[in-house]
């Protein structure tokens, strides 16, 4: 079954696909406006509940104050991303060839 991903969820997975750990603001800056600052943490929380991403608190925070949460794509997230991209590729093939 094709996983249901919103546009923001897809954008987050797309940014995290390299496997690098990132925090929310980094993702907002890297997304060129597709992820908004106001919704990023709520979306990340929801995605973590869906087990699409994993997070952990920064171990040695260089910033004084609140430790940042670093997010990383999970195996389930990788699978969801490839499934959606495979479906998109199939659909664009159908559209190009005509039905």
């Amino acid at each position: 079954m094709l996983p249901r991903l919103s546009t923001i969820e897809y954008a987050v997975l797309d940014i995290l696909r390299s496997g690098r750990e990132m925090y929310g603001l980094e993702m907002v800056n890297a997304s060129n406006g597709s992820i908004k600052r106001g919704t990023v943490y709520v979306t990340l929380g929801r995605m973590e509940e869906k087990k699409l991403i994993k997070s952990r608190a920064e171990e040695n925070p260089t910033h004084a104050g609140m430790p940042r949460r670093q997010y990383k794509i999970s195996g389930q997230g990788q699978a969801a991303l490839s499934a959606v991209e495979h479906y998109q590729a199939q659909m664009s093939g159908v559209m190009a060839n005509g039905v």
Partner: protein
Amino acid sequence: MASDRKNKKLFGAYKKSKFREVNVSAVNERMSELSTFIKFEKNVRLKGKYVAEAKDIVYLQSTKRLSDLKSLNKKYSRVVDEDSVVKVTPTSLALKFLLGAVNKEEIASKRPKAKVIPPPGQFAYRILKFLIRKEDFENIFGQAIADMWEEAAEADAAGDTTRRRFIVWRDHLRLAITLALYFKVRIFKQVLDIFKLAS
């Protein structure tokens, strides 16, 4: 020895129990950040943060409120440093360490005039920490406040006070909207749970 300790106590002196080396980290091309940690009493820790390019700004944070810091300064006007009593308050000692590191690292050639400015959103931080579940606070609100601190510090470093003010207002407004939505969703979920139980 015991009388010596008693004398130090009488003169408001305190032997610092824990001190962490000053940590220098590059935030971006324009800005470096220095932070240190000094523990004065049980549960009173001071963390300092200095943004290198904003030469007159030092953020000092504490596990306690600012009023507690003031009373700490009142209580301990001197600090025992390597067996000599230094006439310095806890907060100014934290600043001294930070600024000492600035000169050592040659980030600033001139000794900067330091003033203590708490990071923006301290009030919101304490209120939200009290109101919100720990897990949600750490994942949503705390992260948004950390972003505000970072962006405000960047604006400070660029000397752009208008932008700093804009960031602080904008992020407080966003926090308020998110808080309203958060409670709305929580109430909705609770009503739904009650409805499920009833049916």
